């Protein structure tokens, strides 16, 4: 099917952004799908825009204010501000005449869109500035009134994280015990042969005792980062810092999630779910390959630097070191205080009434998404119409982990388009 792509310079009450509208030959489209990613290079091209349009579902792929801030350069990304750009895109869709709009996000785009829909649905009443580290209380208009954002009609998460802060937590290197010097405890080094890592193979077999200590150390490091960030802001406010408004925080070694190198972890879902192609309901087995991202852990590309206010909004979340379990499929089983970050996907999904589809590949090699994270999001969701669909052999990008799985992106787009048509046609 022919797909047209037209550039959209978007300027409305919410923001100035830009996008590309992919339209198929079939009119009218049952809904407009709207997508962006918090930091990737331009979101305007590539999957799934042309793929969905070819299946009769128009898609607007847009860039937001933080687009093209690849990991490590997302210095001033304030998570909540992304909602204004999503609002601009949704409003643009309505202004173009689309009656139905579905918001969708990939990876960190998942929490972005989930938060958007949560805020648009519930307004400031859905926020907990008393509990969140950012203290965000909602957008205010020129007259001092809460800004109402246009809610979408459906939400689709693709290879979604459980939050930009929670995903940061699960890949934090727990062996760093002093942020200033970078000093490390070798007993907690996930890339030390003594702890189960095989340097030649790039693969690990960790013992339960090591993992338990490691998770505690990750959580303790997160708590130290929070204290450090809050102290830096207090110092700035008191005039004791280098700046009067904010501060920088540098975090080395943030690529150390045990699951990327130990394939014996997170191997299956807790219960049965539809598996595509076919859609039969089975317990899902993980097919992920080893991830060599640990090579970046001791490099600048494996470090993060943020303004403290951005860090508090985007990368920090409270967690109980004694209870932290990154692989629990239950929100309450993780030990993470999801209410402390607005980027928490489970919190945003908990009270959403709109239809929800979660798409997840069974071969997700990323350092922040596993079968269990998709299941966790699905279990947390309050929507009466929620589906969790797995794509066999799909990696984080939804490309196939090996050619034997066929065109996994096409399978994913088929499921996505059919879901939209079933609800909005």
């Amino acid at each position, binding site marked *: 099917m022919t797909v047209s792509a037209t*550039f959209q310079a978007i300027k409305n009450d919410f923001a100035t952004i830009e996008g590309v509208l992919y339209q198929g030959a079939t009119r009218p489209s049952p809904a407009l799908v709207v997508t962006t990613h918090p930091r990737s290079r331009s979101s305007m091209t590539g999957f799934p825009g042309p793929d969905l349009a070819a299946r009769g579902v128009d898609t607007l792929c847009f860039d937001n204010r933080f687009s093209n801030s690849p990991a490590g350069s997302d210095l001033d990304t304030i998570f909540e501000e992304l909602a204004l750009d999503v609002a601009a895109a949704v409003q643009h869709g309505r202004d173009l005449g689309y009656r139905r709009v579905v918001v969708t996000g990939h990876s960190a785009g998942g929490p972005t869109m989930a938060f958007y829909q949560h805020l648009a649905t519930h307004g400031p009443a859905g926020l907990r500035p008393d509990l969140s580290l950012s203290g965000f209380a909602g957008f205010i208009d020129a007259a001092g009134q809460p800004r109402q954002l246009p809610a979408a009609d459906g939400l689709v998460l693709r290879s979604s994280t459980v939050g930009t802060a929670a995903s940061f937590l699960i890949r934090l290197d727990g062996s760093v015990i002093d942020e200033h010097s970078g000093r490390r405890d070798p007993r907690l080094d996930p890339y030390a042969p003594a702890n189960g890592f095989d340097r030649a193979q790039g693969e690990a077999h960790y013992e339960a005792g090591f993992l338990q200590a490691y998770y505690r150390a990750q959580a303790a490091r997160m708590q130290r980062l929070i204290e450090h960030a809050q102290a830096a802001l207090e110092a700035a406010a008191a005039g004791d810092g*280098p*700046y009067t408004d904010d501060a920088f925080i540098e975090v080395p070694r943030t690529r150390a999630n045990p699951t990327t190198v130990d394939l014996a972890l997170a191997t299956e879902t807790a219960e049965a779910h539809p598996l595509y192609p076919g859609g039969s309901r089975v317990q899902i087995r993980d097919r992920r390959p080893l991830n060599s991202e640990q090579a970046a852990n001791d490099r600048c590309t494996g470090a993060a*630097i943020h303004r403290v206010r951005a860090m508090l909004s985007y990368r920090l979340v409270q967690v109980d070191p004694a209870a932290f379990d990154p692989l629990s499929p239950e929100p309450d089983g993780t030990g993470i205080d999801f209410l402390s970050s607005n980027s928490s996907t489970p919190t945003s999904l908990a009270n959403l009434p709109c239809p929800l589809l979660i798409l997840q590949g069974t071969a997700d090699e990323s350092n922040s998404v596993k079968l269990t994270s998709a299941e966790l999001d699905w279990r947390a969701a309050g929507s009466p119409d929620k589906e969790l669909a797995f794509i066999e052999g799909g990696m984080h990008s939804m490309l196939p982990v090996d050619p034997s799985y066929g065109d996994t992106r096409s399978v994913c787009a088929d499921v996505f388009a059919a879901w939209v048509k079933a609800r909005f046609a």
Partner: protein
Amino acid sequence: MAGREIEASYRLVENDFGRIDGVLRRDPSSPSRVVLLETHPRAASAGNLNAWPCLDLPARGIDTFAYNNRYSNSTAGTELVTVWEPFALDVAAAVQAMRELGYERVILYGHSAGGPLVSYYQNLAEHGSAVFRAGKTLSGFTGFTGSTGFTGAGGGELRLPAADGVILQNGTAGTGSSFLARLDAAILDEDSPVRETSLDLFDPRNGYDPGSGSATYDQAFLAAYFVGQTARMRRLVDQVRARAAEVAAGRGRLADDGVVVIGNIRAEPASVDLALAATSAGTWEVLPHGRQTARSNRLVVPGYAGRNARLDDGGTAHTYRSFLSYRAILDVAGTYDPDATDVAGCGLDLASTNASTPGNLAGVSVPLLITVGTADTQVHIPYGELAYASAAACADRSLVFIDGAEHDMRPISPAFGDTRAMHLDLLVDWLTSRYL
């Protein structure tokens, strides 16, 4: 011309040089053989792709391609990983794409920090890797060859396609020069917030008036201040090089690079003292009046002292590699003069950086147009004269001032009329007479 339908098509460009995206604007009923290319080293994508004058030129017969580069959307203070030299590959990708579309004349347009970018690109395209002086600049960059992963045919030097003309609109003197010009000399220790009183731009004893936010500095203070700025830059360069050497020796906190945080970078005397950079040295075309001395009508930058103290505007962070390539520049022992109008007088070692506008314009031979608004608070009148003077190899060079125009060419007050329209007319005349 009004009422003509301009088509704006979004294009993803992928070729041997790079992968970029941009918007091509043209009048489908009247194909042009000339295209003007615009990008900015760090502007927000939405601003970049919709940059003035790219929206207005197609109706006047000049097609435009506004495109993003690898560092687009790295707004000031977030250019953490911006390394200067690779920009050229993204410009090359755009030039190549336009040639392949059939455009016979490709013109590079650089606004603000885009000025040094297009100067650098054209110099590199005309002369090849020789411009990198065998890696003797602070970045150590030697060229797009096998060692950097970019190879030309046969594994040799990668030559980039040259453009047919270069336009600088309110172009800075370079990304290192512009950083130096606003570096706060009162900071003697990068790890301490303590300010050296005798070099404090915002201390009333030195001529600053906290009430109005303006200043009148005397020559002795300014002379000491400029020396202090270059001394701080040298300390930063030395510190970053020493730390980079530690990393290279395997003794860094990280294995490949590190991050330097620099505070208090909004402290340029001319931003608060309007007696500085007040007129041109020579007489030039000043629109709409004709040939005369250009006189500044800029205003004091409001809230400048507060901006300098805030991280939001007065702080930045760079990887070592980024800083040395993009923001570092060396002086010629104590002779720095930010308002010099010729290369010999500016007191800078232009061979220490690949991001100097005058340093690169010296190698540009294609037609060159330099425009500066006289009310610009960031790019001062002498910068235009310095750029013009440096382009000695260019047989067709012009410098034009627009009276009362700010950094974005909008008028500072309605009394100056439609300065953008004047500038647009100038562009159309300049382009039409040369290329159409």
